[in-house]
């Protein structure tokens, strides 16, 4: 027979995801804002990268013949890919920044942090591809390749090259920020999932030390063993204020679909009171 005492222990046994309410809450949004600015600047600087130069090709008599050469980013497919990828990444960062603040109202299953983390990973990989292709094309443009007889173009189009390298550096910074955002999100996901009791698809070959059964659990109103506490009125005892209950132990068993926990108490009656069988709950009192 479990009886409730007058005072209650604080309820600490709930399966609750601890809400992180500290300044760490602002870390990921700030990083995302910085990454958004970095990728956005990389996109814009590379997309507006253009330089025109007129050079004198030949001289006929006294009339110089000029040729106009333009260097645009569309001439190189690597830079086109770079622009597309960085535009995609900046849009992604902006959207995730917005989702960061409003997802709690729409999500019922906890899928949103998982979706954010996987989209982050995909964007990190794609941006790394874009930035490395652009970096190697830039290196080719700066140094040329003597074996293939490809002349360098950076000595003629210096502004174009400088703008391009600035955009690549900005994209590298954005990539670093996005990698750190991804890592932090994955670490937080791991902490979240470690505190949730999973269903039977968990691998139970090795004990999971983070599982709640390995840690002492307290239910509301649970007493420490051997503790004495005053009783409420129970049939058969008489005046309940003179009796005290002593915690004896806990029995818990698990059925196919249910789980029961029984708290067992000893009843310490003062001298002279003989319990009387009143409500049919017990068969006999010896």
């Amino acid at each position: 027979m479990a009886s409730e005492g007058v005072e209650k222990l604080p309820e600490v046994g709930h399966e609750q995801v601890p809400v992180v309410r500290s300044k760490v809450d602002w870390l990921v949004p700030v990083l995302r804002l910085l990454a958004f600015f970095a990728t956005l600047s990389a996109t814009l600087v590379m997309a507006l990268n253009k330089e025109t130069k007129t050079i004198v090709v030949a001289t006929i008599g006294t009339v110089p013949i000029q040729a106009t050469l333009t260097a645009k980013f569309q001439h190189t497919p690597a830079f086109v890919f770079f622009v597309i990828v960085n535009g995609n990444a900046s849009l992604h960062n902006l959207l995730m920044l917005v989702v960061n603040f409003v997802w709690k109202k729409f999500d019922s299953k906890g899928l949103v942090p998982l979706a954010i983390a996987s989209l982050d990973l995909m964007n990190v990989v794609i941006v790394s591809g874009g930035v490395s292709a652009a970096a190697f094309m830039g290196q080719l443009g700066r140094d040329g390749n003597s074996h293939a007889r490809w002349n360098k173009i950076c000595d003629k189009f210096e502004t174009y090259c400088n703008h391009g390298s600035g955009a690549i550096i900005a994209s590298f910074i954005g990539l670093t920020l996005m990698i750190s955002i991804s890592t932090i999100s994955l670490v937080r996901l791991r902490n979240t999932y470690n505190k949730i009791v999973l269903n039977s698809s968990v691998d139970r070959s090795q004990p999971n030390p983070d599982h709640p059964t390995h840690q002492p659990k307290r239910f509301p109103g649970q007493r420490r063993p051997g503790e004495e506490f005053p009783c409420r009125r129970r049939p058969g005892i008489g005046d309940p204020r003179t009796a005290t209950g002593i915690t004896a132990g806990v029995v818990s068993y698990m059925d196919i679909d249910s789980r029961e926990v029984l708290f067992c108490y000893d009843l310490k009656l003062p001298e002279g009171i003989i319990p009387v069988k009143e409500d049919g709950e017990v068969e006999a009192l010896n």
Partner: protein
Amino acid sequence: MIFSKRFAVFVLRFLALGASISATAIMITSRETVEVLNIKFEAKYTNTPTFVYFVLMNAIASGYSLILLFFPAKNKFGHFILVLDLIMVLLLDSSISACLAIGQVAKKGNSHAGWLPICGQVHKFCDHAAIAVAAGFVASILYFIIVLYSIHNVMNLFTLKN
């Protein structure tokens, strides 16, 4: 069930190891000497730093896979292995992207910069390098699948709370 999981990831890592080793080997042995008008024209993978980067990344990835073949599937280094797997995917993917950019210039040239395509003269080298890049592409896909498996290992992400 546990044995089959370990076997599956072992086979995956073995395949990824094979793909990255073959990419490295094929790129290293791609070499062609062509005589054009009495001028010896030699094409090696060291001519462009992009292919050197590709060889380096695939060598690192195959060394990493070789070491990890002898690790059990679920151990306490799960998170560390996941981070390393992610880094490998990033590196491999960037090396392939750069090789494709350089290869496109080599095949089609860039008329605006005055760069002529060289694949017409050294077409065997070009094909060799293309096969190596294809093997690297397969390796990067396999490493990506390994990353998915590592994430599932570490976080049980694909069993959702109901």
